[in-house]
């Protein structure tokens, strides 16, 4: 089977849009097809990583709960944009998983390397 490098970028803030949940669904399906996958949180999307999120009683789905189990699906290429948390003064918050930071230059490289980008 042809392998395609798939880069999934989550740029939308939690709860503001259905796109981040869609991005995770695409990611899990691509993983089931054994495609090489990279996940990147950019801009407002980094806020999905905050572990203090408590959506109980809100009626909204909290996708951050699904992030720690990505490893089980052998998705280990998970990154966030460098400075995106620091810019928001959120650098001291606890995160749901430890991810490596990528500079804008490294993000440009990741985009270049990918065969397909889903930027949700």
């Amino acid at each position: 089977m042809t392998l395609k490098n798939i880069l999934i970028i989550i740029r939308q803030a939690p709860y503001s849009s259905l796109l981040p949940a869609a991005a995770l669904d695409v990611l899990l399906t691509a993983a089931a097809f054994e495609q090489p996958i990279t996940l990147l949180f950019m801009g407002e999307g980094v806020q999905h990583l905050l572990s203090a999120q408590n959506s109980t009683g809100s009626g909204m789905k909290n996708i951050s709960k699904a992030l720690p189990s990505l490893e089980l699906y052998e998705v280990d290429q998970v990154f966030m944009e460098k400075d995106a948390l620091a810019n928001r003064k959120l650098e001291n918050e606890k995160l749901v998983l430890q991810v490596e930071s990528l500079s804008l230059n490294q993000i440009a490289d990741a985009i270049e390397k990918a065969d397909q980008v889903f930027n949700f």
Partner: protein
Amino acid sequence: MTLHLINKSPAKSSALNECLSVLEASNNSSSAILLIEDAVYSALKHPANMALHEKIKKLASPCYLLKEDLLMRGLHAELVEGFTIVDYAGFVQLSLDFKKVQSWS
């Protein structure tokens, strides 16, 4: 005498900025702003929010944040000063304290 209700992140909508411009130009200071849903991100100390925070500081009208929407997003400590936090009961009471509620999107 208006409660201005704003629900979008400042990265996604100029609603808060436009609302503040109108309130600045107003002769009347008996209005308020309530930030709900993604608008609570306006209270983050993000450099992009600095101009908004300056405007809010100078404003005579109070600016509120909805507690439940802060909790959902895991936002606690790192908010700029000058906002008052209310829950849904407070949101309903604010709607009655002012003559009307105007929503911005």
